[in-house]
């Protein structure tokens, strides 16, 4: 247990900050994912075949390719691509992108593909009469979306979004390959310097279990809140 003390001798404080980093990356990735689904869900539901195709390719490709490969592509390919663009504008220095930004962007794009599917499913399972009623009552488009469709959609989407959150949280462990010090990377460092991998990786597993456990408790509360009246 002295391995977990706070201060210079133990790894407690390092692992504590690493856990905060995992939470920060997960939340950033989830929000980036929501941004992506904000763009792609309407495309999926639109009547235009081309827009449908664009949104479908996004979700199919991302869900069909390993997360680790996406992260490698962003991390190793990302700086190359940016340097190429910069070279067009006459900037030839080496550019390194921050691991937090690339990591949360890569996981965010993956998370976005899953949440797009969740939002699409939720909107499609809202009774058609609701849309028609709004039109008949002459509501403006953004008002009927915010006041009528959104609340019903959220109620249907929250249980599935909690799955997306779990997937996103677990995917952040893969960012450790880029050197960002989150739970997995910190355990790797600690295991390397103390030669006690069994203890540190098991402790990492416990940390992840605690994160999933407590976030599920929180999400269940949200679920209760949004299903009032049903």
């Amino acid at each position, binding site marked *: 247990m002295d391995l977990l003390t706070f201060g210079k001798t133990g790894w407690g404080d390092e692992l504590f900050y690493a856990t905060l980093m995992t939470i920060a990356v997960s939340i950033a990735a989830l929000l980036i994912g929501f941004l992506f689904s904000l763009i792609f869900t309407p495309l999926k539901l639109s009547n235009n075949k081309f827009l449908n195709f664009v949104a479908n390719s996004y979700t199919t490709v991302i869900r069909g390719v*390993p997360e680790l*490969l996406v992260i490698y592509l962003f991390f190793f390919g990302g700086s190359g691509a940016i340097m190429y663009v910069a070279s067009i504008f006459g900037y030839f220095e080496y550019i390194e992108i921050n691991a937090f930004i690339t990591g949360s962007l890569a996981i965010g794009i993956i998370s976005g593909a899953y949440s797009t599917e969740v939002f699409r499913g939720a909107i499609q399972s809202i009774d058609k009469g609701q849309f028609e009623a709004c039109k008949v009552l002459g509501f403006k488009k953004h008002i009927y979306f915010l006041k009528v469709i959104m609340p019903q959609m959220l109620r249907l989407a929250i249980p599935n979004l909690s799955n997306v959150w*779990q997937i996103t949280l677990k*995917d952040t462990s893969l960012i450790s390959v880029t050197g960002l010090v989150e739970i997995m990377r910190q355990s790797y460092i600690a295991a390397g310097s103390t030669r006690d*991998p069994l203890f540190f990786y098991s402790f990492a597993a416990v940390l992840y279990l605690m994160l999933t456990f407590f976030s599920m408790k929180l999400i269940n509360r949200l679920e209760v809140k949004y299903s009032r009246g049903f």
Partner: protein
Amino acid sequence: MATSLPKLLSAAVVTLKLLSLSLIFGLAIGLLFAILRLNKNPIINKFAYGYSYIFRGTPLLVQIFIIYFGLGQIEYFRSTFLWVVFKEPYWCAIIAFALNTGAYTSEILRSAFQTIKPGIIEAGKSLGISNKIIFYKIQIPVAIRQSLPAYGNEIILMMKGTSLASTVTIMDLTGAAKHIVSTTYKPLEVFLLAGGIYLFMTFLIHNLIKYLEKKYSFQ
């Protein structure tokens, strides 16, 4: 690009081998734990629930690292015959994958068993068929049919999971792509090519499952 394609394709075979072995072991583990979950003894079904909760609640990467780096640390363990298996990264990866997919599979099969209409089982009983035969000849085939769509998703998730084998020095598709990138410094082309191969495999698995669903549908 032309030189890296054959290397990537032969690495894709490694990925498929990893996938099929983990699925075979995982299905056996999943079936076992699904049956334990349905057991009326609270200790047994709590144990099965704990197993699936732990393996579904932690990242696959942690599980591989515990098995590959962690278990080798135990002195006693290294002197047993099991060490022959656990010193190989290849088998460690397969064990981790099988335990992981086993947890998800047990959940899929459990819910499939629970959604079987009691009428089917009662019909079997009233025809005087023994419990054992009802289980093997009625419950299992129906449960397999019920769980095909969800299991198809699990196969695709597992295929993506095998990319983590590259973190324990195995040259699967992702590992080989990373190796080629480290010698050619062409990350975009090589990773996109590897992604294309993964996508093609996903496509094949997806269609295979669709075909099986049609073949085994009741209607």
